[in-house]
């Protein structure tokens, strides 16, 4: 089974909860974790991974380059670039900003001087594999700074994870998705069997989780909700009301706990570092609910 954990908004505790849930489910099920936040991956850190066993470079991004020797400085490339990524430098040369180029090759197609603008394949990042200190494998990716195509990295991560699942006869893939609703999140959610949404009771988090839920609906996947930091905003009932209206079952509510950043500093799943806290108790109940409702 493939379970994706998504939130829309960053910082609501998705990786914290995911790490703890993995920790609680690892003894009963054969799991693989996928950190699908390729621009800011950190699930590996939380699961105590310090060294990666295998690292694959992902060469896939394409970046346009302009040969200033043969360029006749007509400016057509700059005019036609759909993302305004071509600028004129101090010496009057037309230059592609490699940190914003999408690699569509429109500049190359419109350039009147053959061979002046070429589309070059560059590294877009790396995908890594490790065994966590809890015994289950993890796949993680890191997009290189300023590169496009983080969604493609995520798709490749999931392919690799599927292959490992087959080889090692694993049962469940748990995907920790990125913030937002764009290509990384679509790649994370697509193909999953179930989505678990995590939100906090604030207007911003509600707005973002509603958006990610629309993406989940697009793929016709059943969704569940976990309310994190449930007590930080007493009186805010809209999150719960929305879930009820949409018929999204609530798996549980986790109270705010100031020890959570401490567990992050220790680079351990919260549940392992502070097993007696109220938040840990809530996470244990959620893990039970997942066993009952989702992983039957």
């Amino acid at each position, binding site marked *: 089974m493939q379970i994706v954990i998504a939130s829309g*908004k960053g910082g609501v505790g998705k990786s914290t909860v995911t790490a703890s849930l993995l920790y609680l489910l690892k003894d009963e099920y054969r799991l693989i974790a996928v950190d699908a936040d390729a621009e*800011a991956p950190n699930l590996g850190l939380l699961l105590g991974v310090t060294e990666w066993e295998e690292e694959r470079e992902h060469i896939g991004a394409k970046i346009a380059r302009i040969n200033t020797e043969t360029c006749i400085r007509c400016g057509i490339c700059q005019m036609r670039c759909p993302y305004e990524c071509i600028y004129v430098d101090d010496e009057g040369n037309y230059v592609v900003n490699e940190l914003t180029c999408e690699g569509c090759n429109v500049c190359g*197609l419109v350039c009147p001087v053959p061979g002046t603008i070429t589309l070059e394949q560059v590294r877009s990042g790396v995908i890594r594999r490790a065994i966590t200190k809890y015994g289950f494998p993890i796949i993680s990716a890191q997009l290189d700074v300023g590169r496009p195509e983080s969604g493609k990295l995520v798709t490749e991560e999931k392919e690799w994870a599927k292959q490992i699942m087959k080889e090692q006869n694993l049962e469940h893939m748990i995907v920790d998705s990125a913030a937002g609703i764009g290509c990384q999140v679509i790649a994370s959610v697509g193909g999953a069997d179930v989505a678990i949404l995590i939100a906090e009771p604030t207007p911003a988090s509600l707005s973002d989780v509603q958006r990610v839920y629309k993406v989940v609906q697009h793929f016709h996947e059943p969704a569940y909700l976990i309310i994190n930091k449930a007590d930080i905003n007493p009186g805010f009932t809209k999150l719960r009301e929305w879930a009820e209206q949409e018929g999204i079952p609530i798996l549980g509510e986790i109270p705010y706990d100031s020890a959570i950043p401490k567990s992050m500093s220790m680079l351990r799943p919260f549940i392992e570092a502070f097993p007696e806290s109220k938040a840990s108790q809530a996470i244990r109940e959620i893990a039970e609910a997942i066993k009952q409702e989702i992983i039957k």
Partner: protein
Amino acid sequence: MQIAISGGKGGTGKSTVAINVAVELAKRFKLILADLDVEAPNDHLLLGVELQNEEEVNQFMPKFDYSKCIKCRKCAEVCEEHAIITLKDGTPFLMPTLCSGCRACEIVCPVPGAIQEGSRLIGHTYVTPTPYGFTLVTGKLREGEERSMPLVVAAKKRLKNLDYELLIVDTAAGTGNTVSKAIEGSQLLIAVTEPTPLGIHDTELILQLGKLMGIETWVVINRADLGDVNEVYERAERYNAKVIAEIPYSENIVKTYVSGTPIVTTDYPEAEIFRGIAERIYEFLRG
């Protein structure tokens, strides 16, 4: 003038810093705040305003006129997104969600009129007046759309037609090319971070991006009392970035965040920290 507020990881407090600094600096500049976190725009919620002046962002999509198409497959060959597939006989078909709207197919098509102008709605931009004397420009990607770059570009284009002295850009999380597109043109980059190993890891990436873009970078440490700030200072120094403020975890900040009231408009003691950040920026911009 333009400054950018970013932070690598999501949830570090970028938007909180952005809106409060905007409220303060709007007293001294004709200001626009641009919410370029187009996948999850929230600045309007934090400012307690409803988005206004909606404009559609439509993206080009090829529409094939099959009576004219000569089935040469050129359109499919140049499509870097592989959004155009061809049948055995060369008849092209578009898979709309993969199309980036770049027009490469239209450019190479040898038959005038065989590819016609189609379009797809991919999101909206908004221009919203705020009660704090500045204008908020927001880009919002439509759910189900994959590509945020065109929305960032559309929002930046729209604000170019507006009159302002200072533009503050609030970026998305991460360090991919849509974040660099948002930051592009800034004289100053402010990275909002948390003093946890995860926060520091992600901050390092945004510091790298700042360095690659050649932009002066400052660091604001949010929830500073929830971790070891020394590590942040060390990393910042490595990248020649100054740490200009530490914000403690505070229930007052959470309270104002939730109620859509910028904390600088209140008497809470924490307001002073945000005013201090705004003051530093003002001095920087004044030179």
